[in-house]
């Protein structure tokens, strides 16, 4: 690795001592019950396997943060309504809260939502799924341990043979 070859750079204290915190602040956009439900939905979309799932990586907190800060109130309301609907559907279909449904039941419910004729329901699902994927793929755990993001590649090689196993490189 040709990192900073030929020169010593003194970085300021904040650059050497930073801690890799993920989103720490949860705004009041959802009630804590709805926040937990969002975590269960994210976990259903990307579950724990031999590596952590979305909930353990706090992806649902990232989703809340982004929806609260980057989207308009109509979208925020639609997320609240969508969460209410998921809970109602769980009661109706399985007679218990979404959180207590088994993983096959949860997946069936979300799959049904993704195919809904109702535009608002479909939009809710695709927003939550898109943000779950983004929050997961951009989490410290995934970028550090699974996709091996290099902040400082130190090179660009134009023509290299395709590696046997591709790894993603997100900017």
């Amino acid at each position, binding site marked *: 690795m040709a*990192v*900073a*070859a*030929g*020169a010593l*750079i*003194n*970085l*300021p204290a*904040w*650059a050497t001592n*930073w801690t*890799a915190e993920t*989103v720490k*602040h949860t705004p009041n956009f959802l009630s804590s019950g709805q926040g937990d439900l969002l975590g269960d939905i994210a976990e*259903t*979309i*990307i*579950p724990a*396997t031999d590596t952590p799932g979305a909930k353990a990586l706090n992806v649902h907190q*990232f989703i809340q*943060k*982004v929806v609260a*800060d*980057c989207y308009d109130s109509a979208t925020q309301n639609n997320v609240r309504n969508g969460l209410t609907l998921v809970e109602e559907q769980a009661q109706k279909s399985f007679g218990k809260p979404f959180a207590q449904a088994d*993983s096959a039941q949860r*997946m069936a419910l*979300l*799959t049904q939502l993704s195919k809904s004729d109702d535009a608002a329901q479909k939009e809710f699902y695709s927003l939550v799924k898109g943000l779950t*994927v983004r*929050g*997961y*793929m*951009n*989490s*410290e755990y*995934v*970028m550090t341990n*699974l*996709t091996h*993001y*290099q*902040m*400082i*590649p130190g*090179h*660009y*090689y*134009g*023509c*290299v*043979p*395709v590696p046997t*196993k*591709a*790894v*993603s*490189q*997100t*900017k």
Partner: protein
Amino acid sequence: MANLTIDAKAQNTYDAIVIGSGISGGWAAKELTGKGLRTLVLERGRDVRHVTDYPTTMMQPWEFEHRGQLTKEVKDANPIISKCYAFYEGTQQFFVKDAEHPYIQEKPFDWIRGYQVGGKSLMWARQTQRWSDFDFQGPARDGFAVDWPIRYADLAPWYSYVERFAGITGNKDGLDTLPDGEFLPPHEWNCVEKHFQKSIAGRYKDRHVIMGRAAHITKPQPIHLQQGRAQCQHRTICERGCPFGGYFSSNSSTIPWAAKTGKMTLRPNSVVHSIIYDEQKGRATGVRIIDANTKQMQEFYARVIFLNAAALNSNLILLNSTSNRFPNGLGNDSGVLGKYVAFHNYRAGISAEYDGNLESTTDGRRPNGPYIPRFRNVYKQETDFLRGYAAGFSANRISRSNQSGLGADLKHSLLNPELGGWSVGSHMMGETIPKESNYVALDKSLKDPFGIPQLKISIDYDDNDDKMVKDYQEQMTEMFTAAGFKNIRLRDDHRNPGLDIHEMGGVRMGKDPKTSMLNKWNQMHAVKNVFVTDGASMTSTSTQNPSLTYMAFSARAVDYAVKAMKKGLV
């Protein structure tokens, strides 16, 4: 009392004043202090020190609260600056927010600005091509604007001078349309870009695809290490400021170099109101500023003044510098001040796919890409529009994951993307024709938060630009098709002028004081101790990115000014 006034005046007197600390002001400051002049550098924004004032430079993607996305509050408050490709969660601190400096869009114009020490040199795109005689002879040959008072040979040694110091990567390609420079090693090509280069070379005698020339240190020389700058580390997050000094900025290079001489006084938070003209002496004597913190007006004095406030703000300052002698703006005997403003036409693009070279891919990241120099109307007029366009080009291997479904299958496919084919793309950079009808002026009633008249901007595309967009799309389609690229898609986003961030002119150079503001030394025809060496001074725009040319003009003008001062001419 009299003595106190004299003392205060002496305290505020320098040999030289530079207005602005961006790419050209930084060079003026470096050259003036290097020649021993006590120089005051006035910057309207805050100080930004190299490394310590780059708060996001070491942040990992997951450390950004919104992973880079702008909040609704920021977007709603800033419809103009939010359009800029480089404005995101990690770079917001370096761009002027819409409300900070209002202006009037007589026609839609996205004015992208960076008010801080270093100006836009912190966030620029770092492309640095020389201009050629096809550019400097353009207005005279094609009958627009006025003839440039210089030719390539006048500027060539100054290009070399600034390139060696700034650090420019590139390949010596031997093209008369794009003269070679003092290059550090070029960046690498990928296989598909090489394929396109060969395909074009085999088909056209006069079209070339070359590796971009950019202000990145690919192999540090002693002069770069002396500046405390190191090799570019290919992070490609340049706009956040680079702790390695891998790319050129005023902050990493010219400003600290000028400071080391002990001759520079840097005064941030100094909004220039006007240049002071002394009717008896027949020269400019200093600069009026408004302190951004105290809102107090203050005067500074010097023998020579360099105006480098960035193209449109240099126009604004001159328009606001009125006197009995110059009621329509400093040096504006000709009436051309503020007029003949032009820009670069970035409206069109093309993208496609390529399914060859599937056995190869790329590794790492590259802060640069291939470049197609202008090939239209170079040796003779051959189309129904004037001038031509350059184009960027690049190819990327796409990795895709199946994002359908959910659960463990989705997770598995996200973590195991398949390498797809190649995606290829290009964008145009067209020359626009400076016209009297494309102008800036001061508004008669509206003021900015400092009480300075607001700038009224009236700049638009014309028929020549539309024809050029069409030709770019046709020619690139032909070139892409010949290279075997599939699924070609064309774009014309009709973006507003200004978003190219290459606005130029209004204080143009020329041979005749009746039709221009500046002579061949960037010196005001009518006020010999005022020099303008930023984008405002450009007579025409060429197709090349302009910053390197501003640097060369600045160094050349300082050399002339200091010699002239010694001879008592300035």
